């Protein structure tokens, strides 16, 4: 058993994509350092985050050993199962302002997070057997595969996760080579549908968007978060105030400073230099994954790995822009950096799929 496990791990280390693994590890180390400061020296936060990383890396290693062909065969079942969990969340779910989690006793399962993986899987599964570039009929089916889970997630209501799931599906279609004029048409339709969508938003979601447009209008409630976060970032300067010296975070002016606003803490304490280094790391991870996708053996692996990579960039862009007041506040964490369970695990699992694609790449490249 031990020997088998050792061989198995050795094989993983032999086939693993070292640049990607090192870049991910670097982000996780940064995360633990930032969390130590943001949590006010509370080792509890660091240990919990570390435990999630260990669980996530475990999932990553496991998935990296599953061949894309097998993953592809399981895709419809995995998609159906995760979609079936959504009604369960509505029935017995828990959460502070929205029903997002299912309590499994030892772990809070967030089906929305699972759908971030299974939706692009399903779209890739469908597209890989359809003629490409996709025609109207194919696109209609993709719209259903993406639309049903997204509507359910937004109803929870969890706008951030809904957006990310929609993006992951849309990126799959984009990478499949959808014609540009169709993209233009969809963008136009989407823009004209915005006023309608506004009617369906929850009051607090509207609040956040209105506050985004003018944060100073409500400096004590919703606007407070954005203003304090901008002060945290801006006061960081070139080099930051130093690790553990961020007064915004430590004097409790910055809200949620271990979760959604963890990157504000990093910006305050490490300055623009630190921010740029972390952005570069993220960009490297995205680029490396897209490169792996481009060299994949089959259409399914290619589309899936590429979509996961591009979705990862959405996390960074949305969270980064949100805390700097460039986008409305939506519940999107900074990937791997923010404190939070399911998100870190599902992200690392996604990278496990990418690593599997890498391990089963084309022989000629």
């Amino acid at each position, binding site marked *: 058993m031990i020997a088998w496990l050792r061989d198995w791990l050795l094989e993983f280390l032999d086939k693993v994509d070292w640049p990607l693994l090192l870049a991910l590890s670097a982000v996780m180390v940064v995360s633990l350092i930032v969390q130590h400061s943001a949590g006010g020296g509370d080792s509890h936060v660091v240990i919990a985050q570390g435990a999630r990383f260990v669980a996530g890396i475990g999932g990553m290693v496991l998935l990296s050993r599953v061949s894309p062909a097998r993953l592809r065969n399981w895709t419809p079942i995995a998609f159906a199962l995760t979609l079936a969990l959504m009604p369960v969340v509505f029935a017995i779910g828990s959460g502070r302002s929205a029903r997002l989690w299912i309590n499994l006793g030892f772990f809070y399962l967030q089906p929305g997070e699972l759908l971030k993986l299974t939706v692009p899987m399903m779209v890739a599964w*469908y597209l890989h*057997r359809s003629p*490409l570039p996709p025609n109207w009929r194919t696109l209609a089916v993709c719209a259903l595969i993406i639309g049903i889970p997204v509507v359910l997630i937004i109803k929870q209501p969890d706008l951030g996760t809904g957006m990310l799931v929609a993006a992951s599906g849309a990126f799959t279609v984009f990478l499949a*080579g959808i014609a540009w004029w169709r993209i233009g048409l969809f963008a136009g339709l989407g823009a004209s549908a915005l006023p309608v969508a506004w009617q369906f938003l929850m009051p607090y979601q509207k609040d956040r968007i209105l506050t985004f447009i003018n944060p100073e209008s409500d400096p004590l409630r919703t606007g407070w978060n954005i203003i304090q976060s901008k002060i945290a970032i801006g006061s960081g300067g070139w080099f930051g105030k130093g690790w553990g010296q961020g007064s915004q975070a*430590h004097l409790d002016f910055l809200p949620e400073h271990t979760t959604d606003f963890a990157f504000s803490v990093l910006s305050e304490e490490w300055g623009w230099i630190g921010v740029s280094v972390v952005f570069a790391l993220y960009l490297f991870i995205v680029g490396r994954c897209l490169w792996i996708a481009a060299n994949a053996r089959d259409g399914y692996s290619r589309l899936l790995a590429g979509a996961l990579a591009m979705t990862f960039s959405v996390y960074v862009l949305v969270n980064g822009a949100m805390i700097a007041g460039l986008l409305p506040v939506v519940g999107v964490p900074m990937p791997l950096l923010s404190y939070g369970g399911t998100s870190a695990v599902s992200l690392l699992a996604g990278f496990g799929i990418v690593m599997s694609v890498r391990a089963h790449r084309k022989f000629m490249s």
Partner: protein
Amino acid sequence: MMRGPRRQQMKNPHVEADQFQRRAAIGFLGIAVAMMGLSFGYFRLQVLQHEEFQTRSEANRIKPRPIVPARGLIFDRNGKLLADNVPAYRLEIVPEQAGNLEQTLAALGQLVSISSDELEQFNAARRVTRGFRPVSLKLRLSEEERDRLAVNRYRFPGVDVVPYLTRRYPYGNLFAHVVGYVGRVDAGDLEAMGDSKDTALTHVGKSGLEKSYETALRGEIGYENVEQNVEGRVLRVINRDPAKPGADLQLSIDVDLQRVAMEAFGELDGAAVAVDPRNGEVLAMVSLPMFDPNLFVNGISHVDYNMLTEDLSRPLFDRNLHGATVPGSTVKPFMGLAGLESGMRRPEDKILSTGEFHLPGVKRGFRDAHAGGHGWVDLRESIAQSVNTYYYKLAVDMGIQRVDEYMDRYGFGRPTGIDLIGESPGVIPSPAWKRKRFKQEWFLGDTVNSGIGQGYWLITPMQLAQGTATLADGGLRQQLHLARAMRHGFQESWQPLPQPAGVRIANNASNVRAVQEGMEGAVNGPHGTARAIAVGAPYLIAGKTGTAQRVSRKGNISLSPHSLPLNQRHQALFIAYAPADNPTIAVAVVVEHGGFGASTAAPIARKIMDAWLIKHTTPMSGVLPETQGKTPLPPDATLDPDEEPAQ
């Protein structure tokens, strides 16, 4: 969905791979541009606008902090301190900064003793407090505990020892029901305070004068803006909106008289109020048994609280305000006055007492205390000898409606308006009330019973004291009050608290005088029901006895009074004022399970009046004259015939 590719659109892996690579390249380019844009966004905030945000971040180090003023002190009429502020140290935890709270609590438990009650209260408070606000764990630390904590401070982030002023009642239980107590701010208080700065308070008045004068005693909370360093430690005070200290209160109560009143009860339960009839000042006010208000200040333990609430004698119950009882014969002076004032009787009108009063057509009679009756009696004798028939007949002649009008004028059936909160209004017997309360018709027999203070009456000791004082003051009712002066600061002088003008309850002073003569006769007359207490008194007393029997009990009178629930105890009453020719004190005494009235309630009143009057006739002596203790009070005073409960 599972259909294969259409014939005219064959899948071409190479074309698809090329297509993907183009799209992936475009995608990466887009992402790279977006990230650079975002990075520039950060550059703008962090480098270009750095100065502005740096300034705002520094301004953020300034936090407003409340300044809680010292609570006003409470003094007795001679300047003795009844409620004091003493420096104390409390143990506070900021849950968000404390790390692992359970470990912290366990480790703290080894340095200071933390009871399960304190732990429970801490957890309850923690649930309603935001994580970065301090929560008190222990409100009073001993000096040793403080030292131990000081040495170990570094081990406990988020744990603080805070000096503050806490309340202390130096006389312990003596003023439990008068001064009352302050207690920890609870969830209900917080709700009432809303968003005001009062939320900074740790204690508020919960009962007694502490509650009724809460606003004045509390003062006004101030604010200061302090600069903090990165650790949240205060570096300096930037500006300050000073707190306004609470006002001091001076009561009309006399500590010595209060103690005499308490001790006069011995082992008995009951209530006594002594007032100055000339101005409505309350001189003493006791409700027995008492409790120690100091227990409540820093959170009473479950054990102590259960002991207080499970005691059949109900120590927490303020008998003066809430212990409404049937007044019995103490109502006769007021009934007599009503008879004169309404024109139904002249003082000299005589009524024949045969021992039994009959309503026409009713076989069962209403009895007098003396089996053979008292013979022909006028108003004065009817009061002095407590002749039931006189009042049976008077009530029937007046009719219940008219009786009620006069009783309302004399202040029964509504709160006296003393400066305490939650006074019971009592009840004047009326057909409307009986219908509402018991859903029963009013009978003429009810009117008869009402005439002698039995039946549906409920009167509090406070109302009795007010009524007695009014009679003593010739029919002028003064507003009863406990606080007589206030000052806003130690150097300021006492400002008398304005009292409303007295209300005249009688149209004719001679009517009041006739009643007064009856009460003088009750104590000093040859047949007076309370003549035993006149023995050895160097001043003239006027008074009236009474009995309230709640539940008919035969043969078990030997039961200890403390073993019966309050509502089953019968009560001996006595009202009095002295000196009769120029009254300076009026007293109402109610003794629970008091055996037979004049022998229990009246001697207590006598002791109170002695303490007040003899002390005041020898103004330079601080100690009571020796004779006072030796004043012969026959232990087996003449059995008051009045004590036989009327049927």
